[in-house]
Each structure stands twice: as structure tokens, then as C-alpha cells.
């Protein structure tokens, strides 16, 4: 049987139900046992600007998007203007036939920069600057076109059900569009209806009318058109598969590993996680009373991290979740947590900076900032997850690191992971270990010293409320009890005590948790974070052609596992750094810590995540000795 690998894209104005349509599609496909990898792109806007969802569906494991589109579904003109040219020559476009006369100039949300590129494209192919021009362009390439009057379907449905209200229920155009496309792709109708029902599960009445619309549109497509050449097969569903959004994984991880306090200030793309935690604030606990997470929305990020520190001092596992601008505000308090050896976790969902940057777009701009944020020297851990599944388990690890080493942990996430929806193996909480380090349950006697000098540099930790465990904290340098001390000898001892914990981190954290090696060869990719997925997919594509490229993913970025990385890269001749920022931040770490230099850089900072296609193409150039030292990727709307 031929393998399935379909990329389905739906676009439309923000607020028109693009995400709902994509969820119906993803849910239906996942329900048939197919693997899903979808990403959502949207503007910093509530209503009207262009948003789209690219869902890749396959019967094999997939971890990224590709450049081309198998089926584009459009119920507005802008979607066609922006994406139609990406459709494979043997792909298909399902579009609203009423759109064809619309001129690019009439679409107010098309920015001038894009319009000028579009004009050039259409002009070069001798096409007019309208939706029809775009459609003709695709027709010439051989793209299969399905012109459908979505409003006509609505009118027919209204007549059929004798419900005049339906005629103007334009909110349902999204469901109509997705259902037509699923009809063409040959998905069983029952699966579609089940998915519609599940997406609207909290609103039964709306679910009912949408199911009617879905059914009607599906039948319309199967009667009117022959099936598309690519169809979705029903395969055996792997048991224990979940369809999960990136931000949910860290949220569920926090609940599982015992984070009981989270404060946050609203910011894209981090706050979805906090809202998820608040939606799930009460849960069952084995052999105990129900547990709960207290989620506090604060007045700013300064308050968010202040509250986290305060809560952590009581012994509760505590965290905040933020993005670059918010993390900037947290820098001073991070240093306080550092000097007072307070275990806190900051989940840092990066986006494109600097300043407000591209607030709803992807980027890995904050690696150096995470490593250096805050004045003065203090130890911290910076740990990066590569995908949704990892981020669930890593969340648990980050809390362990924070408590074992008594220092702030910055868990690097990003917008790509946050707004990815993917199928993965059901998370297994039994694979999580909880290690609370030297947290004390009981203290005898009256000579407790919070910052007692110990052999490993880590002092037994009391908490607010613990009898005989009274301690003092201060942002000033302090003595073993925590009282202010400006003594020069004590200062050196305390600085060295705190700094010594970094060596312990490198010694204690298992090597395979520091760096993941996917096989090393003469040519080796070194990367971090969410680039993992597109890199692995690209390497697989190369492997099919008999081309061998190695890959190591660095997860522990501070303290930097220099010796381990060195030993992994021992036989490597060519190092290729791949990351989503302009200045090659990991690359500069590699150049600083290793005794060899990075040979090639593959960078992307358009605000859009890398596709495996782009990485494949750039690695191919390197393999063919045709690459510049620095390749900058630009694909994606």
C-alpha cells in the first residue's frame, strides 16, 4: 500500500472558525488512526486578519510540516492569494466559487509588501490580479479545482431542513468547507460527524445544526465530484494515542509532577498554559483528598515571579509561564531566587523579539537572554524541550532540578510547540520521578541554618511554617542563617558555594537528559528546542537517498555540558548549527565551549517555524558542497 502523506491547509479571517475547522479535520483523521502534525499561524489581532492552520496527516510518524499543500480549503479570497501557489501540481483547491471576481486590491488585509510580491508572480505568468488569476495559475500547473458555492450549500440545507434561519448562518461556512474537503478525501462520514460532535461538545444545540451542515456538505461533495486522487485510508488505530496541543503538555506535566501554584500575566503564546491549568484546577489524588493548583493572574510579570518565589518558600512546587517581554520584567527577581537558592520554574514560551517583535510568531531568540538574565553571577539551569511529548516529561524534570539544586530553572519552550497540535503516545505519569532534593519535613533543635555550608554546596531546605526551621532570606549577600553580611571572606565562600552547584548539575543530571544523540556522522547537525521535529524528518528524507547526516539535540544549555558535547562530536568533521534566530545563539555557545567551530549555519527568523522541506534543501546544498556558510530560511506565510 502506498503511504499517505497529505498536507491540508485551511485559511480564513481570524474569528471565522478556522481553528474549529482544523480541529474537526484533525480530530476526524486522528480518529481513523492517522498521525497528525498541525500548526496554527495567526496575527496579533482579534478579528479579520488572515489566519491559517496547516495539518499534515500520515500513516507514519511525522514531526513537522512540509512546504507544499496537498489540499487547500478556502472560504475567503486572502487564503487563495497567500497559499494557492504552494499547492502541489497534483494537489487540489476547494474554494468558494463566489470569490473569483475579487481583486487583490479589494482585500484590505493583504499588506503592501505581500501584494507587490503577488503582483510580480501573477504578472510573470500573465494572469490578472484577482482570485480568478490565482486559480488560473494553479490550473496551468495541473491543480485539481473544486469550485463550490458554500452559501449555496447553506441555502440548500435551509430548504431541506425547512429551517429558514440556516440560510444566514454564515458562521457555519467553516464546517461546510471542511466537510466538503473530507468528502473529497473519502473519509467515512461517521468519523466526521463524531469529530464535529466532539468539537462542539459543550454546546449541544450548536453541535446538532453543525452536524446537519457537515452531513449535507459531505454528501454534496461525494455526489457532485469524483473522489480526489489522494484519499485518507482507515488504518488500525494505535492504542493510547492522544491528540494534544503544545501548551497542554507542560500544563498536564505541571499537574502530574505536583506544581501547586502558578501565577502569570497574560501574554502570547504562554498564557494558554495558565488558562488550561485554571480550567483543570481541581484533580483527584491517589489515597488522598482532592488536590488543586492555585492559579493567580497577577498585575504584571514582576508580580508573577514574586508570587512564585513566595509560594516556593512555603515548600509548594511553584511556577510561572511567560514569553520574552514578560521574562524581561522577571530578571531582577530571578537573581533574588538565585542568591536565596529558591527552587522556581519559569516556563519560557519564546516568540519573535526584540521588544514586542512578532508577538504571535515563532522564534528562539531568547537563549542567550535566558542564560544571562539578571545582574550579578548566580547559578541557574536553562533546559530546552524539543517537542510536545518531551515537554510533558521535561516539566517534571525541571521541577526536580529546581528542588535538587535549589536554583531557578528556565524551561525553554516556544510558539512553535505551543500552537502545534499533534498525535502522540498517551503521556505516562509513571515515567515521571519526583525528587524534592533536600527539602526537610522535620527539624530538631534550634540551630538550623538555611545556607549551611555543606560538602556538595547544597543546604538542607526548610520552608515557611516548619517548626524549628526559621530562616532569613535577603537579596543582600548573607551569612549561613540568611542575615545580611558584607564580610569579604563570607562573600567569597557564599559565591563559591552557589557557583559550585553548577558542576553538581553536570555531574548529576543523566547524560542522556543533557544531550540527545540521534546518531553522529562526519556531517552533524547540532540544534536545540523545537527544530528537533523538522530536523529528524529532513534526515529521514536524506536517509532514503542514502545520505547520512548526524544530529545531536542539546537540552541542557546552562550549565553547558561542554565535555559531553565534545566527546559526542569527537569524530565529526562538519558541524551544522540549526536554529530559529538571527544571531545563531547556540552557535555562539558552541564556538565558545568547543575546540572546533561551527562550519555551517541554517537559520530562520521570519517568525515562522522551519519545515522539514527547507532543512532538507539546505542540508542537501551542504552535502553537495554548494552551500554558503550561512543559509537563511524564508518559507511560509
Amino acid at each position, binding site marked *: 500500500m502506498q503511504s499517505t502523506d497529505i498536507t491540508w491547509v485551511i485559511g480564513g479571517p481570524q474569528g471565522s472558525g478556522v481553528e474549529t475547522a482544523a480541529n474537526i479535520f484533525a480530530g476526524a483523521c486522528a480518529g481513523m488512526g492517522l498521525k497528525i502534525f498541525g500548526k496554527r499561524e495567526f496575527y496579533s489581532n482579534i478579528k479579520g486578519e488572515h489566519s491559517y492552520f496547516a495539518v499534515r496527516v500520515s500513516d507514519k510518524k511525522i514531526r513537522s510540516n512540509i512546504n507544499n499543500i496537498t489540499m487547500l480549503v478556502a472560504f475567503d479570497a486572502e487564503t487563495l492569494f497567500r497559499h494557492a501557489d504552494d499547492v502541489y501540481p497534483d494537489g487540489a483547491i476547494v474554494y468558494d466559487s463566489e470569490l473569483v471576481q475579487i481583486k487583490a486590491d479589494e482585500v484590505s488585509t493583504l499588506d503592501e509588501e505581500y501584494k507587490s510580491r503577488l503582483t510580480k508572480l501573477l504578472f510573470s505568468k500573465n494572469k490578472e490580479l484577482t482570485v480568478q488569476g490565482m486559480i488560473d495559475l494553479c490550473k496551468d500547473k495541473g491543480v485539481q479545482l473544486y469550485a463550490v458555492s458554500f452559501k449555496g450549500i447553506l441555502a440548500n440545507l435551509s430548504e431541506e431542513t425547512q429551517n429558514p434561519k440556516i440560510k444566514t448562518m454564515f458562521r457555519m461556512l467553516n464546517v461546510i468547507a471542511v466537510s466538503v474537503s473530507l468528502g473529497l478525501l473519502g473519509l467515512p462520514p461517521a468519523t466526521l460527524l463524531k469529530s464535529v460532535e466532539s468539537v462542539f461538545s459543550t454546546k449541544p444545540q450548536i453541535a446538532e445544526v453543525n452536524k446537519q451542515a457537515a452531513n449535507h456538505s459531505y454528501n454534496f461533495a461525494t455526489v457532485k465530484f469524483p473522489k480526489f486522487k489522494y484519499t485518507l485510508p482507515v488504518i488500525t488505530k494505535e492504542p493510547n494515542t492522544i491528540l494534544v496541543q503544545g501548551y497542554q503538555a507542560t500544563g498536564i506535566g505541571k499537574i502530574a509532577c505536583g506544581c501547586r501554584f502558578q501565577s502569570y500575566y497574560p501574554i502570547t503564546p504562554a498564557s494558554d498554559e495558565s488558562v488550561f491549568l485554571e480550567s483543570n484546577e481541581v484533580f483527584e489524588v491517589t489515597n488522598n*483528598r482532592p*488536590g488543586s*493548583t492555585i492559579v493567580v493572574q497577577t498585575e504584571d510579570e514582576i508580580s508573577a515571579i514574586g508570587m512564585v518565589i*513566595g509560594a516556593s518558600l512555603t515548600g509548594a512546587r511553584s511556577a510561572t509561564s511567560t514569553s520574552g517581554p514578560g521574562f524581561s520584567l522577571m530578571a531582577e527577581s530571578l537573581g533574588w531566587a538565585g542568591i536565596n537558592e529558591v527552587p522556581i520554574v519559569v516556563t519560557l514560551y519564546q516568540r519573535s523579539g526584540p521588544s514586542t517583535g512578532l508577538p504571535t510568531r515563532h522564534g528562539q531568540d531568547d537563549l542567550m537572554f535566558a542564560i544571562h538574565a539578571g545582574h550579578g553571577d548566580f547559578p541557574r539551569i536553562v533546559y530546552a524541550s524539543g517537542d510536545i511529548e518531551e515537554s510533558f516529561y521535561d516539566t517534571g524534570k525541571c521541577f526536580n532540578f529546581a528542588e535538587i539544586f535549589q536554583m531557578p530553572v528556565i524551561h525553554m519552550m516556544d510558539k512553535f510547540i505551543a500552537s502545534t497540535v499533534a498525535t502522540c503516545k498517551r503521556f505516562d505519569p509513571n515515567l515521571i520521578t519526583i525528587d524534592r532534593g533536600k527539602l526537610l519535613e522535620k527539624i530538631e533543635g534550634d540551630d538550623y541554618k538555611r545556607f549551611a555550608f555543606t560538602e556538595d554546596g547544597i543546604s538542607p531546605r526548610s520552608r515557611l511554617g516548619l517548626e524549628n526551621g526559621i530562616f532569613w532570606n535577603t537579596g543582600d549577600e548573607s551569612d549561613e542563617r540568611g542575615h545580611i553580611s558584607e564580610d569579604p571572606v563570607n562573600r567569597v565562600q557564599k559565591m563559591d558555594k552557589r557557583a559550585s552547584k553548577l558542576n553538581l548539575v553536570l555531574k548529576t543530571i543523566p547524560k542522556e537528559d543533557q544531550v540527545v544523540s540521534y546518531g553522529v556522522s562526519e556531517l552533524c547537525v547540532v540544534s536545540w528546542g523545537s527544530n528537533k521535529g523538522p530536523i529528524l524528518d529532513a534526515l529521514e528524507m536524506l536517509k532514503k537517498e542514502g545520505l547520512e547526516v548526524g544530529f545531536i539535540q542539546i537540552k541542557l544549555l546552562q550549565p553547558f555540558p561542554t565535555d559531553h558535547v565534545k566527546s559526542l562530536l569527537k569524530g565529526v568533521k562538519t558541524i551544522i548549527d540549526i536554529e530559529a534566530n538571527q544571531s545563531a545563539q547556540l552557535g555562539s555557545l558552541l564556538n565558545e565551549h568547543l575546540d572546533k567551530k561551527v562550519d555551517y549555519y541554517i537559520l530562520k527568523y521570519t517568525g515562522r517555524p522551519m519545515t522539514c522541506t527547507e532543512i532538507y534543501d539546505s542540508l542537501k546544498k551542504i552535502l553537495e558542497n554548494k552551500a554558503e556558510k550561512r543559509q537563511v530560511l524564508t518559507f511560509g506565510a
Partner: protein
Amino acid sequence: MEPKLSDYKTEVHNDWCPGCGDFGIVSAIQMALTEMKIPRHKAAIFSGIGCSGKTSHFINVFGIHTLHGRVLTFAQGAKLANPEMTIIVAGGDGDGLGIGAGHFVAAGRRNVDMTYIIFNNAVYGLTKGQASPTLQLGLKTKSLPQPNVNQSVNPIGLAIASGFTFVGRGYSYDVRQLKDLIIAAVKHKGLAFLDVLQPCPAYNDINTRDWFAGLGNIDQTTRKSQPRIYKLEDIGYDPVVHYGSEEEVNEKLTQALIKANEWDAKIPTGIFYQNELIAPYEQRIADRIPNYLENPPADQPISSGGKPITDISKILDSLEV
């Protein structure tokens, strides 16, 4: 064993200037803790930055000396994670009403059950006497190169407008009254604010101890100087919202604001406003999470034998394809 006053004192050398008003505040806090018999490990002093920030080191309970302007945020996090703690927050006027003013307002809206004391001397002492947010417009304290160019903020008025449910003022040279005010503030269910007038002998040469005692405040008829400080309780002032009708609340808020505006010749101390009919933040959480107060974040078991005991199966079930 009955706690003694000395139990609440640390051995830490106190480096405040001789004659500093802060001494009276520390004593009053220690006396209040002793009188309320609060076990030492059940109390925590959170402090900000500045001379007042050192307060936490002088009191023998948990002492968390935080960052400039941020003390309320640390304290609220701790209290919400462990609501059994008695938490007293000590901060300066610049700390709470300048750099930390946003947190001041937000804390008022939350109404977390704790006590916030502002050490109000109208100057930034530790940085050599710049004007603080409470220094009046046009005053030139001794280290200012020019008279103060900003209007002063009214701490009592701001607290009332922000939603603090207990608002009072003390004077650091009336330690007995201050101790009683602190006890009332700690016992209050909700966020209590105390504005404590505290002369800075080093940098505020205008609002001095003598000034508060009546220097320059000449009664036109008797030609004698009159003490500026007086007690609201001595004039039969009732700060408490008893029933909570809109009319009553408005009346109590209004009279408090009028009293908040008295200054110079007559400076009121005591409780300006108290309303326990507004639920503290902890209660608002408990209304949603019924066992929150018995099983708060700090007390929740999270693991057994190194393994998680939280059941996430329902969430995962909802994501199953």
C-alpha cells in the same frame, strides 16, 4: 510555654540611626506577636528595600527581605500557598508608593488576609534623602538641592480607593497605640494597611518628632503649640462597616477620605476604615476549591515513593483519539 517579648528578638546588630522612628515600629511588631502568642514558626515578616527592609532581620520569625517595590508580591504568593501563616509586610514609602505602586493597587483588589505596614518618612533615607512619594509639594528637606516638585500621594486615600478592607495610621513614637493597631490589623480578615508616620532624623528635617509634637503649630487663641497627632477613637469616630448597605459603605468610605485629607495642624491616627464583609481572596478561592484552606499548596502531598500521586487520567482520556 508563654512566649516572651525576647523570643521575638534576634541578636542581629541594628544599624538604624540613633533616634530613628523605625525602632518603635519593630518594637510594636514584636510586642504584637508576643501578645497574640503567635508561634514563631507560624509568622513571617516580608520586607522591601531601604532602611525599613532590614526589619525582617530584627524579628525572630521567618524573615524574607525581598526586592525594592516587590515585597507585596512575594508575601501574597507565600500566604496563598500557606494560608496558615501570619504574614506582616514591612516596606518603605518609596518602596510601596513609588516603585511598587502598581502592586499596592493590585493587592488592594485581591484582599489577601495579611498586614501591610508602610514606614512613612517622606524621604529615601538609605540613598541619602531624596524626596519620596509622600513628601509634600514644595518642601525642601535637608538634602534636596531644590524643593520637591511633585505632589504627594495620600497613602490612606490610595489604600481606600484600591480596596484595602482595613486602613489605619500609627505614629512610631506611640508604640502602645501602634502595637494595638498591628494586633487589630493582623486579626482583621483581609488585607490591612497601616500608614506609620516615622520621622527620619537623618534626612527629614521638616516632619520631625518635634514637628509632630506641635512645633510651629500655634493655637490662635491660646498662643500655645498644639500636638498635631490625634486619635480618631478620641473623637468617637466609627470606622467599621457593620451592615454593608450601599449607603453605609459610601458613608464610611467618604468619612475615611475626608479624614485622610487632614494634615499639618491636625493629623489623625487610628483606624480610618474597616470592612470585613468583603471576602478575603482566600475565601474567594475556597468558594471554588472547597478544600483549599485545609489542603493548601504548601501542605499537599504530591508523591509517594518518588512517584506522582496526582491522577491525570481524566485529562488524558479527554485527549484520546
